[in-house]
């Protein structure tokens, strides 16, 4: 069992439930995502539901990185704020730490009326 993977799964599920989130993309560069897929395939871990990157720096500060697509009819700006606030509320309650977690949320696609979904 991997604590980071479990937390990633939980956070992925939380992000997916935020209004306006249309997609969650694996965070990090394409190469990193591809490597992660290979590593997890070898370790028999299923990571399709663990797209939020969870890491910590040398000081122990938790770093959360999320990449999302915004659903048609929702503001990217407002959805970003909703995702980050929802994650912070969860982390501050469920994962107490001496330092506030660093939360990095990026929109990499905005769906429009003509988007294919």
């Amino acid at each position, binding site marked *: 069992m991997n604590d980071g993977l479990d937390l990633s799964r939980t956070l992925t599920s939380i992000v997916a439930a935020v209004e306006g989130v249309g997609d969650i993309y694996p965070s990090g560069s394409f190469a990193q995502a591809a490597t992660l897929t290979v590593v997890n395939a070898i370790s028999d871990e299923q990571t399709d539901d663990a797209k939020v990157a969870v890491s910590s720096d040398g000081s122990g500060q938790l770093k959360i990185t999320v990449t999302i697509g915004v659903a048609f009819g929702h503001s990217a*700006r407002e959805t970003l704020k909703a995702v980050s606030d929802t994650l912070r509320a969860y982390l501050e309650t469920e994962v107490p730490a001496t330092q506030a977690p660093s939360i990095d949320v990026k929109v990499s696609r905005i769906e429009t009326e003509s988007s294919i979904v």
Partner: protein
Amino acid sequence: MTSDNVDPTSLDPERLLDGLDPSDLDGHTIEELGDYLDSGRQPRNASIENSAGSRIALDSLARLRRESWAMLEEESVADPDRDRIWMQNVIANISRESKAGRDIPISHPHPATTLKITEGSVRGLIRAAGDGTGGAIIGKVALDGDVTLPREPITVSVTASVNYGQNLAALARLLREVIADELSTHTELNVTAIDVAIQDVHTKSTATTKDPL
């Protein structure tokens, strides 16, 4: 080749895609995405579906085919070389503009929160807004200025090709309005100007010039 014996497949996007850089789309080529679109996105390709850049390009390709292709094909019968070049440019631009590009910041009061929107997603938004007006196909989209700095003055530049018979001034005004509206909804960019250049007018009259009197 005359207007009567144009190879109808010569305008297929897959035949216009040589030379594009796969690195623009997380390792996928536009040609590959065109094939994937043709297959109805079946079987599901996780690598494409998990690539935001590829998804933006798929959106643009699908819209180009669905809403705009007929307009171009009609004229291409009369002037295939010109429109083949034009379509090649549009598709090449879609490929280039779909990659993530620069990060555009969104403000948040918490010091440990960083929010951003990729330049590629914003270019895709602008392209969709312009194409959605109905009378134009967006050729190229550019954000001029340092979009990575909050409140920095930014100029949006788009080129468009339009149907014959439209009021070009009104269409340019409409394009500016829909683009400004989308950018205001989704970003905090300080847009100081939206430059619209109509580069081509697609017209049946081109065809009639080759018709016998």
